C-alpha cells in the first residue's frame, strides 16, 4: 500500500523553566492509505506530542522546536509556512481530541463550529455549509441532526459530543485523521460505539487513521499495525497480530501481560510493570527502560539500543536482546 504520511526522525523539544526537554526523540514511522495505525504507551510517553507535532499545534514562536521531517504525500509539513500549514490543518489532516467537552468551544453551537471548519477550506455559502453540517452529524449517528445542529456542546451527552467532534473533524474529508484517545473520557458502552463508528468511517471514506490510545484492547480490535512508545521513543513496531502473538520488547510484554482478560485465572495477581514512567529530564545514558526492566544488563545501562529488525517484515524492536536480529532467546 502507498504511504500517506511518513515521519522521519521527528524530534520535538520544549523550552521550560527547567531547561529544554525533548518530549519526542527521533521517531520514524509511516501511515499507509486507508490504514488504522495504533500508537500505544503509558501517559507521558510522547504519543500526544507526536500527533500534535505532525499538525504543528504548539506555539512555535516561543516554546517548541521541531526537527526531522513530516512528509504528507511527500510534502514536508515542517517546512511549510504558517499560512500553508493552515490550509493543511482541518483539510488534509484533522484531529479528534480526548475530551469533547473541553475541546468544543462552549459559546458556539455545534453547527456553528462545523460550518466554520467547512468554510475555512471551501468557498460555499453559510446555508450550504449548514446543510453539510447536518449531513455530517447524521453520518456520525446523531439522532435528529436538524435539531442538534443548533445545540451548544454542554447541552449534549458525552457520547453525542464525541460524535459531534468526529463530525467536525470529518467536515473537509481529511486524508488523515488523528484520534487522540478518542474514547478515554467516555463510558465503556459508549467507548465501543465510538470505536465502531471510527472503523466504519475508515472503511466508508478510506482515510488513514492514527489512533492514539493507552488501551491495548482497542488496538487489538481496530488497528492493523501498532507502534509502542516509551519516553519519547518507539520501542516496538509491527503488525497487530504479530505484536500480540509474539511481543518482544520487555515493555510490550509487560503491557500485554497487565491487561486483564476473562480467561485469566482470578486467583493470580494481575501483572504490573514495576516503577513509574520517569521524567524525561531524567533519561540516562543507556536504554530508557532499563530502570524498570527485569532483564536489564550492564550494557543496557551504559549504551543506547537501536531499533532492530525481527524475522517478520515490519517488526522492529528497540532492545539489545535482539541485537543479532532474528529469533529471540526467551529469558525464562
Amino acid at each position, binding site marked *: 500500500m502507498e504511504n500517506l504520511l511518513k515521519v522521519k526522525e521527528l524530534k520535538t523539544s520544549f523550552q521550560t523553566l527547567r531547561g529544554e526537554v525533548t518530549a519526542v526523540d527521533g521517531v520514524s514511522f509511516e501511515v499507509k492509505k486507508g490504514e488504522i495505525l495504533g500508537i500505544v504507551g503509558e501517559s507521558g510517553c510522547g504519543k500526544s506530542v507526536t500527533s500534535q507535532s505532525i499538525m504543528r499545534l504548539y506555539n512555535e514562536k516561543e516554546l517548541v522546536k521541531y526537527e526531522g521531517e513530516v512528509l504528507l504525500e511527500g510534502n514536508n509539513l515542517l517546512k511549510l509556512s504558517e499560512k500553508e500549514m493552515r490550509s493543511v490543518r482541518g483539510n488534509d489532516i484533522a484531529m479528534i481530541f480526548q475530551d469533547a467537552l473541553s475541546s468544543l468551544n462552549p*459559546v458556539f453551537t455545534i453547527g456553528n463550529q462545523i460550518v466554520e471548519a467547512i468554510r475555512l477550506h471551501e468557498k460555499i455559502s453559510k446555508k450550504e455549509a449548514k446543510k453539510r453540517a447536518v449531513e455530517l452529524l447524521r453520518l456520525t449517528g446523531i439522532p435528529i441532526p436538524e435539531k442538534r445542529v443548533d445545540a451548544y456542546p454542554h447541552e449534549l451527552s458525552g457520547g453525542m459530543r464525541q460524535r459531534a467532534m468526529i463530525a467536525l473533524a470529518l467536515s473537509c474529508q481529511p486524508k488523515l485523521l488523528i484520534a487522540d484517545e478518542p474514547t478515554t473520557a467516555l463510558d465503556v458502552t459508549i467507548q465501543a460505539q465510538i470505536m465502531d463508528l471510527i472503523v466504519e468511517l475508515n472503511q466508508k471514506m478510506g482515510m488513514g487513521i492514527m489512533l492514539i490510545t493507552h488501551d491495548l484492547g482497542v488496538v487489538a480490535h481496530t488497528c492493523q499495525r501498532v507502534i509502542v512508545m516509551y519516553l519519547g521513543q518507539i520501542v516496538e513496531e509491527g503488525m497487530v497480530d504479530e505484536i500480540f502473538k509474539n511481543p518482544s520488547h520487555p515493555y510490550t510484554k509487560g503491557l500485554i501481560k497487565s491487561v486483564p482478560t476473562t480467561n485469566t485465572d482470578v486467583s493470580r495477581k494481575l501483572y504490573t510493570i514495576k516503577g513509574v514512567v520517569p521524567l524525561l529530564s531524567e533519561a540516562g545514558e543507556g536504554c530508557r527502560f532499563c530502570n524498570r526492566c527485569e532483564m536489564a544488563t550492564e550494557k543496557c545501562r551504559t549504551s543506547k539500543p537501536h531499533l532492530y529488525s525481527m524475522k517478520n517484515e515490519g517488526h522492529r524492536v528497540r532492545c539489545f536482546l535482539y541485537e543479532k536480529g532474528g529469533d529471540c532467546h526467551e529469558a525464562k
Partner: protein
Amino acid sequence: MKKYFFKRLFYTIVTLLIVSVILFVLTHCTGADPAKLVLGIQATPEAVEDLREKMGLNDSLIVQYFRWLGDILHGDLGTSYMKNKTVTELLGESFMPTFNIAIYAEIISMCIGIPLGVLAAKYKGKSASVAISSVALLGMSIPGFLLALFMMMAFCVKLQWFPVAGYTPAMEGFLEHIRSMTLPAIALGFPQAALITRTTNNAMLEVMNTEYIKTAKAKGASEGAILFKHALRNALIPIITVCLQSFAVFFGGAVIIEQIFNIPGIGTLVFSSISSRDYYVIQGAVLVIALIYVVANILMDILYGIVDPRIRITGKSK
C-alpha cells in the same frame, strides 16, 4: 429564570437597606449638631433647640431613620439644610456632569484596555507584550489626581489646549463640552484602562491554553480568528466584570477629579455637604451611587447570560 430574578431583586433590596442603615448611623453618630451648623456659632441655645425640634432631631434615632426611609419610598430624599433645595433637585443638577465624565472615561478605558490586552496576549513573551504590560503597570501606578495635575500643567497652562477647569453642558456647545470633559475623563479613565488591559490579557492567556483553542487551530483557523472569535468571546466574562465595575469606580473617583477640575457634579456636592454636615444630601447622594453600583451588577448578570450559554442554563435552573 423568574425565581432567580426575584431572588436577585430581594437581595438587592436587602443590600440597599443595609447601605441606608450604615449611612444613617455614620452620619448621625458624629456628635456634630446640624442645627448649630445651620444657625452659626452665635445662635442662642433657644433658637438651636427650636430648630432641632423643627428638624425632628429630638426624636430617637430609630424614629428618624424610619421617617427618612418612609420619605425615600415616597420618592422624597429630604431637603438640604444649607442650600434650601430638595436633595432630589440637587442630585438632578449634579448628576449629568458626573454621568458624562463617567461615560467618557468608560469609553476611553475600554477602547484602550481591551485591544491592548488582546494584543499583549497575541505577542506573549515578545517585546510588544512586555511594552504593553509595562505601560499598564505604569498606568495602574499613577494616581488619577496626579495624572490630572500633570496634564493640567502640560495641556492647560503650557499648551493651552484645554480649559483649566469648569464644565460646559452638552447643550451649550458640544465642542466646548468635549473640551471641558477631555482631561477629567482621561484622568479618571487611564488607571482603569490599565486595569482592563491587564484583566483582558490574563483572561485571554487563560483561554488560549484551553483545549478548544487547540481544536480551532487544528481546524485551520487563522490566528486572528482564533484570537478575536474563539478566545475573546470566551474571555469576555472577566472583561465585562471589570468594565462595569469601573463604571461604579468612576462615580466614586469623580469626588477627587471633580474637585481638581471644578466640575459641579455629585462628587463636588458630596464633598461640600460632608464638610457642612448636610446629612440628607450625603445620604441621598451616596444612596444613589450605591444604586448605580447595584444596577451595574444586575446588568453584569444579564450580560453574562448573553455571552455564555452555559450561564443561561444555570440561571434557569436556579
